[in-house]
């Protein structure tokens, strides 16, 4: 157990140091601590999974030397982070409201806080219950992610057998953030024990809730943060997928992290572009988690290009693109290496002409639209369907006007990603009903935390009306 805890602490430490190194100098760390810790979970597992994969490519097998190198890197990065933050005198983070008021201000905030802590308790209990129901996780966990992890660690010099066409190993084109993280944890533990992927699933689930709560506290208000986090925690299916060790929850985390960092960039733009470096990294890590992440990344870059060029001109666009690319670049290089040298065929993409033919079939559009509408209404394992209540809330609270440039980019990116998902379904060369039944609810979980973030960010705050 100590070895597993160490593997997690090293990953979180690397994520924390990396985030602190890039966190704008004029922002104090302490008020943003929950936000930074939540980001550190995803960034930590992202960085260490990339290092693990790089290690396999260069040295063939992972062992004690990898652990020593990671600890060494952690010390160096921590030293850099401490020294970088000491260089500039820290002053108050005036442009951004942070967690400053320890007291709850109103009755509704009290009620929201109590409800939040109750749902948090139940969610924790529920998560454990789901884990006990199947400690090996769901089909995708043992059929894809942890299976790949076994090859990466136990395969020794033959770790490339993970992508072998000899057997019937499925989805060999899926990226490696989760498999490499699990294999890395097993290499610390010295055995392929179920506890490692369970803890990774738990940390991503908890970090998503922590990130949503802390980001809305910083960017909106605490009552909005309580509301959003309560709704997320009460979404049973989100917990089910986290406990089942599916990659949809980590992917949802990276979507959310990217949007949060873009919004934070707007507040901190006068200070530095470092938030964009972090946003580039998290967007890249989304693509390193699942293929849907590549679609999200493409949508983000496209929306950023169009929105920024139209509103702020080419200079601003290029000034923003550079830090974004700096964060994105290293992840994309590793992803490109994987896709070009190891990944198998993507079984959800059709040849261009076939895709065009499928786009011309109205019945497919109708089937997909019906499934989307059905899922949007009956999504998340709720006792009462949440969608009408959220719509009612938006109607009663009112939308903040005007939305900022970054908020527009986030909203458009998310909408375009969902449209992209829709088109993938329409053109997928597999039985459509089967595909929709087995994946659409999971796909919606990927965008659920980001949707809640944008709803509660863009509606009026409870203390504003």
């Amino acid at each position, binding site marked *: 157990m100590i070895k597993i805890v160490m593997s997690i602490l090293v990953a979180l430490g690397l994520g924390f140091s990396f985030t602190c190194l890039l966190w704008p100098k004029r922002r104090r760390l302490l008020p943003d601590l929950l936000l930074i810790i939540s980001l550190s979970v995803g960034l930590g597992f992202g960085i260490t999974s990339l290092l693990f994969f790089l290690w396999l490519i260069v040295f063939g097998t992972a062992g004690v030397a990898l652990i020593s190198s990671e600890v060494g890197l952690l010390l160096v990065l921590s030293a850099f982070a401490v020294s970088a933050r000491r260089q500039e005198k820290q002053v108050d983070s005036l442009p951004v409201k942070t967690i400053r008021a320890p007291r709850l201000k109103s009755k*509704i905030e009290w*009620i*929201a806080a109590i*409800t939040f802590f*109750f*749902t948090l308790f*139940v*969610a924790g*209990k*529920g998560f*454990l*219950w789901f884990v*006990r*129901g*199947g*400690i*090996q996780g769901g*089909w995708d966990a*043992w*059929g894809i992610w*942890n*299976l790949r992890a*076994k*090859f990466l660690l*136990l*395969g*020794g010099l*033959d*770790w490339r*057998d*993970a992508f*072998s066409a*000899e*057997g*019937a*190993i499925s989805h060999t084109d899926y990226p490696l953030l989760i498999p490499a993280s699990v294999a890395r944890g097993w290499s610390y533990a010295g055995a392929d024990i179920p506890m490692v992927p369970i803890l990774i699933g738990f940390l991503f689930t908890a970090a998503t809730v922590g990130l949503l709560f802390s980001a809305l506290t910083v960017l909106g208000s605490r*009552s909005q943060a309580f*509301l959003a986090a*309560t*709704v997320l*925690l*009460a*979404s*049973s299916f989100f917990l089910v997928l986290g406990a089942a060790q599916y990659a949809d929850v980590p992917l949802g985390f990276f979507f959310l992290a990217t949007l949060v960092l873009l919004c934070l960039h707007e507040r901190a733009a006068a200070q530095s572009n470092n938030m964009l470096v972090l946003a580039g990294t998290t967007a890249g890590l989304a693509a390193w988690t699942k293929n849907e992440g590549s679609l999200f990344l493409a949508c983000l870059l496209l929306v950023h290009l169009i929105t920024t060029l139209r509103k702020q001109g080419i200079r601003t666009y290029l000034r923003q693109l550079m830090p974004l690319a700096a964060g994105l670049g290293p992840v994309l290089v590793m992803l490109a290496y994987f896709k070009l040298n190891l990944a198998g065929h993507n079984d959800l993409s059709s040849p261009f002409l076939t895709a065009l033919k499928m786009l011309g079939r109205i019945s497919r559009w109708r089937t997909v639209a019906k499934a989307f509408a059905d899922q949007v209404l009956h999504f998340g*394992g*709720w*006792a*009462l369907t*949440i969608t009408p*209540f*959220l719509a*009612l*809330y938006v*109607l*009663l*609270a*009112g939308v903040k006007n005007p939305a900022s440039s970054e908020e527009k980019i986030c909203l458009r990116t998310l909408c375009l990603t969902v449209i992209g998902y829709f088109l993938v379904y329409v053109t997928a060369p597999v039985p459509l009903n089967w595909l929709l039944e087995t994946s659409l609810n999971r796909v919606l979980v990927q965008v659920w935390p980001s949707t809640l973030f944008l709803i509660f960010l863009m509606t*009026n705050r*409870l203390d504003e*009306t």
Partner: protein
Amino acid sequence: MNFRSSIHIAGAVCLLIVSLLSSGQLLKLTYQSHSPDVDNLYLGRFDGIKSLLPQRGVVCYMPNPDNSFDAKKHYFLAQYALAPLVVRPTADCDPLIGDFPAGSTAASVSGQQFVVLNDFGNGLMLLRRNTGR
């Protein structure tokens, strides 16, 4: 408190109530007992056979002949249990693993073109193709 503020709070309270209902439903679920963890039990069946197989490379796998959802699932579980061996779901190489969890006996297999090298019980067998040698 003005009207706008009141309806805003009403919207928030609605969301909290729906969330509480959902959490209550989940809480109730957590007091129910689990059915056995069948996937974990299935994986445990392969513990004995691993030591008799090579550490790396390809092994063949003969699944339950009915092309059912369960048979497909059992193949993927077998692949997970035996990784980093690559498990080929055809009976055209040695060593060959017979996986008949419904309870086939060694006799029903050995009469065909395979020789049973080891019967682990629960329908799991290590086989060799009967090439006449």
